[in-house]
């Protein structure tokens, strides 16, 4: 197993390198400059700005320098926020995003898993139809809609939560629910599907034939089978949930990392954009690795090769 992990880690590093290289190129060949504005920027100032960020050097030199810095853990200077480094901005914003993400995840797993399990066990009853209809709504109502609705009811009409911003546990609740609900819906459907498949399988029939109680059959055997597709889904889902949602963080004006995926691109804040891409990529790659490892524990049929 250690060999498996080591082999995969090498893969992770190579993939990361490819991602960084491609992103670097795509970002740099995009037309438009981080320094452009309505008012013409004086040539000398433009030169000074380019020199400050190292853009006066040939692109390949900039690339190698950047790779060198990334290896050292230095993600460069932000261009838009002129007195901050990218490391600093990520250090400030990522934990906030992760707080929302973590709560959203708990909400999603709790609601999704319980809902899906009930629906599967009570297949084709009004419980099943009811829960799956709600899940369908959950999938179809994106945070773009659920966010403002939550604000309207729980921040404006009922002043229980702040409308936006950051600072207390209250600020985290609405964004987390808004973000988590879509995932909850997916998880519910996946759990239901996974469990139904298992419930019809031979070993469940054997378990029932052996006279095990229905509770034991569901909790000990069916649930475990139901988890598998959810785990597959959770890898990338956790990664994207943890680096933040552009929409949710904009609606709730959360000082997290999500909005940078869009804003840094619009601002041509090259290093900040690269920074958030790298963080996302690392999350995604490591979580996928974790998922693969988890498979081995959940499903004995899967072997580490």
């Amino acid at each position, binding site marked *: 197993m250690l060999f498996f992990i080591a082999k995969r880690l090498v893969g992770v590093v190579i993939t990361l390198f490819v991602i960084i290289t491609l992103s670097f190129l795509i970002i740099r060949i995009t*037309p*438009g*400059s*981080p*320094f*452009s*504005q*309505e*008012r*013409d*920027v*004086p*040539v*000398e*100032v433009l*030169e*000074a*700005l380019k020199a*400050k960020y190292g853009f*006066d050097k040939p692109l390949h030199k900039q690339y190698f320098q950047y790779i060198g810095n990334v290896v050292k853990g230095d993600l460069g200077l932000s261009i*838009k*926020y*002129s*007195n*901050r480094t990218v490391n*600093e*901005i990520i250090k*400030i*914003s990522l934990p906030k995003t992760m707080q929302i993400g973590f709560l959203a995840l708990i909400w999603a797993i709790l609601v999704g898993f319980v809902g899906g399990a009930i629906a599967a066990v009570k297949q084709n009853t009004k419980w099943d139809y009811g829960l799956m209809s709600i899940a369908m709504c959950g999938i179809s109502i994106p945070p773009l809609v659920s966010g*403002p609705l939550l*604000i309207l009811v729980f*921040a*404006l*009409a*009922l*002043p229980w939560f*702040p*409308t*936006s*911003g*950051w*600072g207390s546990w209250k600020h985290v609740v609405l964004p987390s629910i808004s973000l988590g609900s879509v995932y909850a819906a997916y998880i519910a459907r996946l759990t239901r599907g996974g469990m139904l498949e298992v419930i019809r399988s031979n070993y469940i029939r054997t378990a029932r034939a052996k006279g095990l109680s229905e509770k034991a059959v569901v909790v000990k055997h069916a649930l475990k089978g139901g988890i598998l597709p959810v785990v597959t889904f959770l890898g990338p889902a956790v990664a994207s949930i943890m680096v933040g949602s552009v929409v949710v963080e*904009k*609606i*709730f*004006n959360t*000082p997290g990392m999500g*909005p940078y995926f869009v804003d840094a691109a*619009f*601002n*041509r804040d090259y290093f900040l954009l690269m920074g958030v891409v790298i963080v996302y990529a690392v999350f995604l790659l490591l979580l996928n690795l974790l998922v693969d490892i988890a498979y081995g524990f959940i499903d004995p049929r899967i072997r580490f090769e």
Partner: protein
Amino acid sequence: MKKILPLLLLSLTIACTKKDTHPDYYGTVIPKHPADEMWTDAGGEPQYMDPAQVSDSVSQALTDAMFVRLTEVHPITQKPIGDFATSWDLSQDGREYTFHLREDAKWSDGKPMTAHDVEYSWKRLLNPKTVSTYSQMADIIQNGRAFREGSVTVTGLKNFDAAESKMIQDKLPAQLKDVEITSDARTKNYFLFVKDEDAQAKKDKKDQLIEEINKGILGSDIKAEPTTANVVQVQAKDDYTLWVQLVSPAPYFVGMISYMVFAPVPKHVIEKFEAQGRPELWTRAENIVVSGAFKLVEEEFKQYKIYQKNPLYFHADKVRLNKVKAIMIENAQPTMNAYKVGQHDWSSSESYPSEYVDEMRKYKDTWFYPKTAVYYYQFNVERKPLNDKRVRQALSLAVDRKSIVDNILKLGQIPSRDLVMEGLGGYKSIQSEVYNPAKAKQLLSEAGYPNGKDFPKILVKFNTLEGHRKIAEAVQEMWKNNLNIHVEITNMEWRTLIEDQNVHNFDIMRMAWVADYLDPHTFLSVFLSHSTNNHTGWKNAKFDELMDQSDYMRDPEARLSLFQEAEHILADEQPIMPIYWYSGTKQVKPYVKGIFPSLQDKYNWKYMWIDERWYKGVPENPDAVPNVPWE
């Protein structure tokens, strides 16, 4: 659910009938903070906190109360008045200003603030290393441009006339002959501006030029060196007297230096951080040293900034607030929600989504006010058929601007075909005819496109924003209906659009210009032939000449009529097609006093205070407390 629903409805009813609201105002009217505090929305995290670099409204709003300038714009009259400078004298020729500065001014760390700080700050503004995108504003200071553009200073010559300039040009080696030569007899310097598109080639040429001259090609005692800040004609005569010589009399100068980039900055602090290799860190809350009414004391990136009253500010006794909290909200919808529940007392320019404008009109705490900014379409006059002025006139006259303002924008913008707004620095607008489809049709026919026949395919570009799209669609339809021509419209991402503008890759492009100072010069000078902000390709010698004359005209009335004359040329030639003059809208809680509508959207916290009567709800006579600034 059956039990929860009535409870929910009940709470909703209670929430809506709570006492801290009033039908005349949007949301709560009772302050949520102590009476010596104010909460404002900043519109987002600023790009810069260094005054010299300020170029956007957010950075401007968050630095305004921290750094005094020599003059300020009076919040009500909107005319320049003294601030750090108490008075100033003007020389006979109108080019030399002597500013007398306050003697009681101190930096927030206790060090006296003097004329030397101003000298340092203005020279620093011109230094390209400061990376101020507004540094060109200081070109008006004698020899400012020579320093800013990195020219070569030549000393040892005597006459400073055309013949001598020609002599220099003649003696330069062939590959260096295209230098621009200027001189300043007072400092006995010539300035040679080397030109080259490529930065490295330019540097090489400059080095070569210095080497050649020092070898003696102009004469044995004639020397050359890179231009330093020393030649810039701004000088501290003593601690409290600042002398400055301008290129031309430029009567707008006193108003212009109220702009943030001209704020004195603390040399002793900046140099300390420069020595550490991270100059930008001096603006952090833990490091910053200020001169104004408030000092940044705490900041949470993208959340808020907290400012405390600066007890060493020279008008500290008049400042009534002790603390200001600026909240960073980036989008209109969260801004509006936060305002409603009292998370901030007044909002930045983007107060609420535009579709709420009819709703907001009902409330007394929504402001509508004129702004000194113009929305226009610029024509690329180097391209057919827009090189024909009749086509440009026709396109411009065929746009029903009033309909655009009334039906799309609805904020009380002023439809106009002119660039300079009525009343700006005393200006009387030339009031060109705004809409005349019949004449437009005739002009187009004269240009060879009767009833739009064979009109070439042209494209209107604008940056991606719903409002711009609506206007472009309206214009497209008006041109179709009035001129029977079809133009394409396309939206582009902002920085890509700017890129296209810079290389003149457009037929027609949407743009806007905001006044930097309250004088017609701020708008008209954009369209000078040599202006780097003129992207239309339009050049007019008569226009340039009139603008040049205005720089030297001392009589205010005559100067304004020169501007009018220049604008008549612009209106006739129509290299741009103004559509409307902007108006602003924002929300301000009724308990905030000392805040006034501003043409340039600038609001200094130092005048503001909280009317305590509102803590008990809407007072009997809300306007009994007069809303006036101190002094």
